[in-house]
Structures are given as C-alpha cells and as structure tokens.
C-alpha cells in the first residue's frame, strides 16, 4: 500500500512535467479523475507523453491494452505495477518475434495461453466442430491454437479469415479470466507431446479443384515428425529460426513452431511484405522457406545462416545451382534441406541442396513406400489422423538404400462427357499452342453438369482473343478443348504455389 501511494505521488509529479501543468491544476485532480475529462481535459497526445515518460521513469514497458479504457492516476499506477511484475517474471529474452514487430518472452507466451485457456473453457464454442483461428499474426495464431488444443478444441488453421465457430486472440483477450493452472513449468513442447492422440489440428489447404480441403492431423504425429527430424539432423547449435513460412500451413507449423519449441530457441516470423534481417547477436540461424523466397533471401544470406529448409514446392535445378554457388563462394558451412511432402502426406523424404542429385531423395527412416497397382502407397506415422496408408500423387522410382527418384507430379485423369482424358495431354497441346507462356490446366468436377465438369486453362499471356480455328481443332484432335483464360501472370500464394483458387480470383479481379 505504501508503495502504491509512493507511486501515485511520482505519477502525479510526472504528469505535471509531461504536459506542463501548473501546480494549481494538478491540485484539482483526484487520483480517480479521468485525465481526458474534468478537471484537466487532457488531450490524446498528452496521454501518449505521460505513458512514454512513465515508461522511461519507471523502466517498464506498457502493452497495447494499457492504452485502452479510462486513464486515471490510479490506473496508471496499477498498470505500472503490473508492467513491473511482468518484467520481473519474464526475465528470459524474447522467444517469439512476431511479423508485426512485437515480441513475446516464453513466460509471456505461456501467460497468454493460460489466460486464453480459461476464457475458452467458458466460451461456449462447439467442441465437435473445428474451431477456426482467425488470427493472421503467427504468434497470436499459435497462442490461440495451443490454448484451444489444451482446452479440448480442434483448432482449424486456415488462410480464410472468416467462417463459423471462429475465434481470435483479441476476442479472447478482451474477456475476463483468471490464469489457468493447466500450464505447468514444463516447456510447452513437452506438454504438447503428452497430449492424447485425439488432440488434433485441422489444416485447410486451397485444394486442387478450388474447393478448400481440411486435413486433420494429430498433435502426436506432428510432434513425432519433429522428434525424427531432430534425430536425423544436428540442430543443437542453432540459436534462431528465421521463419518465412507461417504456421498456418502444416509445414510451417512443424518447422516454424514445433521445432523452435522443441529446441527452445527463438523464432522470427517474417511478414510476406517485409523481410527483416536476423539480429546481429545470433550466430546460428536456420531459414524455413518456400522456393519463391529464395530469390530475395539468397542475396541477404550471411555467415549466420547454417541451414536453409525448403518445402512446399520443388527447389528446382536453377536454385540448387545458385545454392551450391553460394556455399562454394562465401558460405561453406551452409547446409540446405529440401523436404518432399505435403499436408496430406507429412514429410516423406529429403535431399541435401547443392549436394544430392536434384531428383534423388532419401526417405525418412520411419516412412516406407510400397508399389500397388502401378502407383505407390505411403506408410508413415505422419499421415492424417486415422489414415494408415495413402497413395502418392507423384511419379517416383524406388532406388537402393531407401532412396527414391522423384519424377514429378503424376498425371491426372478426368472424365469428360463420359470419356477419360489425361490432363497432361491437354497441357502438352496448350504448351505447343502458347509456346513459352506459363500455363495451368484444371478439370473442375461439377455434379450437375452433363459434361461432368469444366475444363479450364489459365495462360500467362497479355490479354488475347482465342478463336477455336481449324488449326486448333487439328492440334487437339480427339481431346476436348479447354476454356482459356488469359492473365498477365500466374499468381502464387504465400507458399509460392499456383492454385486454382488464386487463378480464379485473378480472373475475377481482372473483370471488375
């Protein structure tokens, strides 16, 4: 109490100095008077200065919530005491660097999760349905997701910012709740590892037919994938993960969230518009990227970087050559891991960039591939919940020593007007027709269509008219001619992938 009163006097003195009050003015102010109201009628810029000066004077950091609500001498004192306590309990350095510039210590991260758990317990969301996490900021997204899992919900990670049974960090934070005792002193990774197998997270992908697909993954399988990766590679010396892939994607969830949790090292989440250099104070950094990031990252690579991890798409021959050149010319200690896999399959295999042949991958120790009816079935612990084995959508050859030769995506066969056609065959014809222009072909199944669906091609070409001439008919012969949409370029999503959804959106925007 004595401390509180002492602080009250100090805050009152600071207000006089900060906003240049006269003694007679501060004398009229009670400790519970709204500073923006009577008797002072201060301005918002006055408040900002008072808070800035109190931060400096008392050596504390206020958070955004401190600038909301009513502002009185008493509330500033309370906030100062609270900020002092937060500071004393979070003596460890920041663990999560958000893409919006904020950062959270491990203690703050846990504190927030504890609060969110309490609020979620009485929030009344439907536990039988996926709980959509609305946050875009990776740290807030993960705090909500972890709290939801601990509370028995099934969080849904999606790039779609709306939907039913949805929740956001800000929404939960605004509700009152005592800190939960569910989080103990153990690290969060250990606690996630001990969750029952029914604890799951849904990941929503854009889907090859334009319809989002939800994939249900058990926490246990993803934790196991991380355990296997840390056994396979020596990440012990790392002191920062530089994450260019959001944990909204399963690849990001594993490499940009679970892995740093497991290693107990900080993670820096990059935004998709602004690349920040890794802090100069760290010496061993791993960058988690997708292929489209390579171009902007490669010039910024410094000797701090030990590992580059790529997934979400083929790294490609040209990038691989560039990587090898970087290693040879200036970064001899840099290693690159190119991971083959998808949300549907989990990690399957890897190759070391710049060393291994561009198509040759090493299967992960616990993954096996079995030939079956001209294709390959994956047997792995990293498959979606309840899936024992899954067909591989890629063309591969199995080599000796658990190695595979990756030959690209498997051709898709679609049924159009009752006949079966190869999408690859259509794509080849279009490539002849639009030589040098990037293109994609999709067959969108439509239950109510007599044709069985729509065959559509997107061609990266300046707006052009497409006439079905005799020459075109001759080229396609017995193949169906797709509807052609011309767009200036093929758009890519945050994972650097061209998706049907993105293409359709681009066409729609062009027509507005």
């Amino acid at each position, binding site marked *: 109490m004595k401390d509180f009163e002492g602080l009250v006097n100090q805050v009152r003195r600071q207000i006089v100095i900060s906003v240049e009050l006269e003694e007679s003015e501060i004398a009229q102010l009670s400790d519970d008077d709204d500073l923006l109201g009577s008797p002072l009628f201060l*301005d*918002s*810029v*006055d408040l900002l*200065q008072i808070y800035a000066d109190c931060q400096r004077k008392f050596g504390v950091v206020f958070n955004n919530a401190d*600038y909301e609500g009513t502002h009185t001498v008493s509330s500033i004192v309370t906030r100062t005491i609270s900020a002092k306590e937060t500071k004393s309990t979070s003596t460890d350095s920041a663990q999560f660097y958000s893409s919006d*510039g904020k950062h959270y210590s491990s203690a703050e991260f846990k504190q927030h999760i504890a609060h969110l758990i309490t609020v979620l317990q009485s929030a009344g969301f439907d536990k039988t349905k996926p709980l959509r996490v609305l946050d875009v900021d990776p740290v807030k997204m993960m705090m909500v997701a972890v709290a939801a899992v601990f509370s028995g919900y099934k969080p849904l990670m999606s790039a779609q910012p709306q939907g039913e049974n949805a929740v956001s960090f800000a929404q939960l934070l605004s509700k009152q709740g005592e800190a939960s005792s569910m989080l103990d002193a153990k690290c969060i990774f250990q606690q996630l590892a001990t969750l029952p197998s029914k604890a799951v997270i849904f990941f929503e992908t854009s889907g090859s037919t334009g319809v989002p697909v939800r994939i249900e993954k058990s926490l246990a399988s993803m934790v196991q994938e991380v355990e296997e990766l840390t056994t396979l590679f020596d990440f012990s010396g790392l002191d920062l993960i530089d994450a260019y892939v959001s944990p909204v994607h399963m690849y990001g969830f594993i490499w940009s969230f679970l892995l740093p949790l497991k290693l107990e090292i900080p993670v820096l989440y990059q935004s998709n*518009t*602004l690349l920040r250099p890794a802090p100069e104070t760290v010496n061993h950094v791993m960058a988690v990227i997708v292929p489209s990031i390579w171009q902007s990252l490669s010039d910024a690579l410094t000797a701090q970087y030990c590992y580059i991890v790529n997934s979400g798409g083929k790294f490609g021959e040209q990038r691989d050559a560039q990587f090898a050149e970087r290693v040879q010319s200036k970064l001899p200690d840099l290693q690159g891991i190119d991971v083959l896999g998808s949300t549907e399959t989990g990690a399957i295999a890897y190759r070391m960039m710049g060393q291994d042949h561009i198509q040759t991958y090493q299967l992960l120790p616990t993954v096996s591939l079995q030939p079956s009816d001209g294709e390959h079935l994956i047997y792995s612990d990293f498959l979606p919940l309840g899936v024992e084995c899954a067909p591989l959508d890629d063309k591969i050859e199995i080599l000796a020593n658990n190695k595979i030769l990756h030959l690209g995506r498997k051709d898709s066969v679609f049924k159009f007007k009752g006949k079966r056609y190869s999408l690859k065959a259509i794509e080849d014809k279009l490539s002849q027709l639009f030589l040098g222009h990037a293109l994609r072909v999709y067959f969108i199944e439509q239950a109510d269509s007599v044709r069985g669906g729509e065959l559509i091609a997107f061609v990266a070409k300046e707006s052009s008219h497409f006439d079905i001439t005799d020459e075109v008919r001759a080229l396609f012969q017995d193949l169906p001619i797709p509807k052609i949409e011309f767009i200036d370029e093929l758009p890519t999503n945050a994972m650097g992938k061209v998706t049907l959804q993105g293409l359709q959106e681009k066409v729609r925007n062009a027509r*507005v």
Partner: protein
Amino acid sequence: MPECKSQVVITGYGVISSCGDNAQELYNSMQSQRSGVVPLSCFDVTGLPSDIAGIVRSVREKHQDKQTDLPDFSTLFAIEAIEEALSAANLSRHILVNKRVALCVGNANTGMEKLEQGIMENQHEGLVEYPAHKQSDNIAKHFGVLGPVLTFTSACTSSSSALGFAKQLLDNDVVDIVIAGGTDALAKTIYAGFHSLQSVAPEVCSPYDVKMGLSLGEGAGFLVLENYNHAEARNQPTIMQLAGTASSLDAYHATAPEPQGAGVRRSFETALRSSDVTPEDLDYVNTHGTGTPANDGAELKGIFAALNPQDKTSIPVSSSKSYFGHTLGAAGAIEFISALVAIEKGQLPSTLNGDDIREDCQGHHIVVNGLIDHNVACIGATNSAFGGHNTTMLARKSVTAIPKAEGKKVYILGHGSIAEQGGYSNGADQPLLSYEGEFALKPFQSKLYRRRMSTIGQYAIGASYLAFSGADVDYSDAEKPPMGAYFGTTLGASQVQQRNLSDLQEYGPTGVKSTLFPDTVLNAPLGNLALAFDLKGCSANFSDLGNEGMHALWHAFMDLREDKIACALVCSAEDKSNTSDLVWQQMQVAGQRLASSANALVAVNEQDPRASRALAQVDEFNAGRWVFDEDSQQWDCAALAQLTDKPDLIVLSMVNAGQFEAISKALQAQFSTTQVINGRAYKESGIACQSLDAISLATCALNGRMFMGREVALQNTSKPESVLVMSVNTQLSATTCLVSTVKGK
C-alpha cells in the same frame, strides 16, 4: 457578363519515390505489388519500435557523401521529378523561357536534415537550406522560373494544395504554365515524431486493414498544368483535366481527424460545387488512407457523405500509401500520380498487404492486393493533414469548358497585429494592448488559450482576435457559414522545434515528445486558429522568405472570388528562438527584424453583407523574381508585366533593406510620378509578417488613417485611390497586390 470557363489540363508528370525514379518504375512496382518500404539505413532510429520507411535510395546513395555541400534532399528529389514531368509535357527550357511560368511546391518537412545537422552537429552554414521556401527557390532557379514561386506547407496536404492553387492561377490567366506538386525528404526528427504519436506500423502499412499504422516515405511528384487552349496550340496531348479542387478545415484536433469526416465531406462538396463533375461521374477515389485507426474510417465516412451513392461499393477506393509510404508534403501529388499511371494503363491502384478490412471501413469497394482492370473517365483524390486540413481534387479524361461565374469582388474588412510590445487593430490608432517581453494570450483572452499553446500560436490568435474586432465580425456565431483561414509563416513554431531537437539530441529518437511534435508542422498555428475561432472553410498554409502573408491573402482572394467562401481570416506569424536567430544569421537578415510577431486580416467577398463597411478592395495579385539585366543595367520583375493601371502609391517592403534603394528606383523608373514608400519606415516587420503589414499599411493609406500609431506620409496625393503593395523576400522574389478604395462607398 463575360463568359468564364475553366479548362485546366495535365500535360505531363514526373515522380520519384521508394518505388523507383520515374513513373514507369512506379507502375512496375505497383504492378508487381512491390512496396518500397524497407528497413531504414540512412539514419539511426535505435530504440524505436519500427525501423522501416520508403526511402529514395538512388538519390540518397548518389549524394550521401557530399550531402553537406548540397541542398536538402527534397530539392534534389524535386529536380528529378520535374525533369521527367517537363519531358513528358514536351517542354524544354528554351520553350519555358518564353512562357509565363509558375512553380507551386508542397513541402512539409522543410530542410529538416539540414536543421538537424546545423543544430546538432554545428554545421551552421547548412542552415540556409532549412526553410521550406528555400527548397522552392532552389528548384525555381534550377529551372529558370521567373514567375510566381509559392510554397505550400499544410503538412500532408501541401502538394494537393499546391495543385489546387495551380488551377486557380491558370483559371485566372495569371500564367501560361504551372509546375505544381510536392517534395519531401524524411529526417530523423520526423520519423521519431510519428513514433511518439504511436502512429507507425511495424510492417508495410495496409490502410483499411485491421493491421493499424502508417509507413513513412519520401519523394517528389510534380505535374505540368496548362490551359487546354495553350496545350492544343502546341499540339500537346492532355492526360486529364483538373476539373475541381477545394479544401477545408476540421477545427477539431491538432492531429486527429473529425471522426465523422465532416471536414473531408465539406472539402469534397466544395470541389464538386466548383466543377461540373457529379458524384455519378466518379469511377474511383484515391484516398489519403494512412492506415491509422483515426483516419481511414473517418475519411471514408466523409467522402461517401459527400457523394451519397445508392451503393457505396459502386465507387472503388484505395490508398496508394502501401507502395511508397506516407510521403507527407509530397503525398497528395505522388498519390495522384500513382492513380494517373494506373489509369493510363486502364487499371486502378490498390492497397497492399490487405488481409482483413477493419470494421469501420467495411461495406466499400476497397481495391486490395493488386491493380485491377477498370475503365476510368473521372476520379477524385482526397488528402488530410495535421491541423485538420483537408483537400480534394477531381480530374477526368475528357476535357470540357466548365462554366464559371464572374469573380466576386473581394474586400478587406479589418486588420490587426501584435508586435513591438503592443496590439493594434484598424479600429484604433493607439495600441489596444501592451505587453513586456513576449505576448501571452492567456491574460489577454483566456478563453482562446489552450494548454501548451506555442508562442507563435498565441501571437496568431491574438492578432486574429484584434482583426476580428477591427472588422466587427462575430467569430463565435455558431450559425456562420464556414469561414476560410489562410496562414503564412516562414519557420513555424521555431521555439517548439528547438525543444524538439534538444530532446532528440539528449535522449535520442525515443525522446521526441508527442506533446511537442504536432506543433512543429508549419501549419500547426493554422490548426490553432481553426480551433480558436471555429474556422471550417477553405484553407491554405504558406511559407516563403518574406512574402508568405501575401500568398495567404492571394489564396483567400482566389477562393473568395470563386465564392467558395464568403469570409476569410488571413494571418501571418513568426516567433523568435535561438534556432531561428541562427537560421536568419546564416541568411544574412538584419538582427533587428528578429522578434516574435503576428498580423491578420479579415476579408470578405461581395456576397457577405458586411462588405458594405469594407476598408479596401483587393483587385489583383502577381509575383515574380527581380532580375538585374547586365546588358541594359536595369532591374526587371515579371510581377509587374501584367499590371494594367498605374497605381497612385506604391508600398514597398523588402527583407533585405540593403537593396531597397535599387528596387525602389526601378519601380520609380516604371511608374514615374508614383510615390514609393518604404513599409519598414512604419513598422520594423519581421520576415513572415512584412507582406501583410504592407497590405495593412496600404489599407490605412487608402483610408487616411494612422498605421501602428504613425501617420502615413503622402507626397503627391492626400488620399490615394489605388496602392500597389510589393513585398520582396530574401531571394528577391516579389509578390504584388493591388488594393484600392471601395468603389461606390
């Protein structure tokens, strides 16, 4: 009644920003959705929570090593952009020499880096490059502009104000061509100042999105404007017609906009009223859209309150600030150009990085994440600024002759001043108040005083109060139509700026105070005036090196003539500090002129019933640089070329007294029997106040009254009927105003 038409067209533009050095590079950036906002490296921002901005790397990297020997970067940016604009408009310097050319420059940050270096690193010689108008003067000299050179300093509406006035200069046939736009270079003080207000986003800004905050930037954007007939005569294709412009004041807060966007609405409505554009014509509005919580929603409310469409989504809107950041004094011009480059390709600019539209901005068609194809015939553009200043521009592809009513007559109703330890107004020959040291508003008019009011703000309000009193105008009438407000200042609140720099020097960027920073913008006193007297009409803020007061009156005159407003307050003010003394010492201005002072006029047009008791009529303005012709050994000034009638009296007021005799002789050579009187013989005016003092002196001479307690000594006439007032700044640029007795009085 003669038929008046407006056909001002854009025939060229140029731009330099963090998105590239020209319009094509800007378009490429926009097309690839690339933002120029990147981590800062040009100055140290240690301790601030954000470290990104849109910096013009090309110019900075080229000149960084020898920057102390060069003008401020804002001058260098402007030169690059104007070169491109002139080239696009097919105007060589050879052609310009034979044209009547004006330069209108928007600038918010002044030469701030020069001030930082001058004060914090004792590089005093660089202080000559600090004043905002010095940038304009540098640019004018570079391009050989001898006509009017005006510097608009209403913070983030500076360049849109410049474009608006450019249109008025052409509508009134003052010049053939106007180069108009804005330029600003970012500096540590500015960057830290916006952080003190917690306005800066940690990553690239995304106006209208739930991610709040602005990104700062720098650069320049300039347009070439001319009348359609002029462009047609030289076979120059037109890009768009500038069909309407307007401005307003919020009279609400120093930094925050009025929450319902009432100021934006008033400005937009005035622009529509002054043109033949209807809300239905608009295909797109390029908004100010800063990304801050206060701005975006309020601005949309204001725009759509003015347009009132049945379907709000029928008019797409976007802010271009995600591309190059908020370029402050250059924002209006650069953003307008960003719309032009997209429109010329059949597209609309977009807001980048949009994930989730915030609640108060929903229900609109906000263009996000990539240019969209859209045929555009007519656009609007809005900007807003500290001090509650708003501007609107309307432009369309097809050129029409917009009918205009004949200009209204404009009168001076009253004037007041505070200087030399006294306060005067036209109603009294003796001082109405006296003070020791510096004037303090609180003991004089406590209701008009607000906490922490800057000295310059107190002087401005005091002088304006005296002018209102002299004019017998009740400013407190809540029912009054929006009254215009126009302000001129050379350095603004130099005392506040001095404290601001002192904090920066002592504590680093985190030490800059939110309570001081808003007062350092040059139009902060204008915001003070708007709040004190509830002024919500058209508005502009000028800086010069001696003529700013007359430029403010010139703009008021244009708006009153066009009947955008019926009554206006015009004020100029300056304060004295160690910093301002250092600047003026470097500019070799005599020490006795350095004192805090302010003066003000109340002007009305013939629509205002109070016009019947006017003191004088304002007839015309012009401006131009005095140049000594070595061949003829004569001084010549373009401002006098169009003067049709010989005045009965000339009031000449010059900052540099040393050249008074030469210029006075040149005037007497042209107007052989007209007496030239020295304005400074009646009052030792400061720099910012000299031109309005000269107008007040002329008004007293027309009415046979004393000025500042001194009788005006006339030689050839007991009561002149017309007086030519000429104010000459430190750079020998002159602005003239012809005032006369009120006809029929």
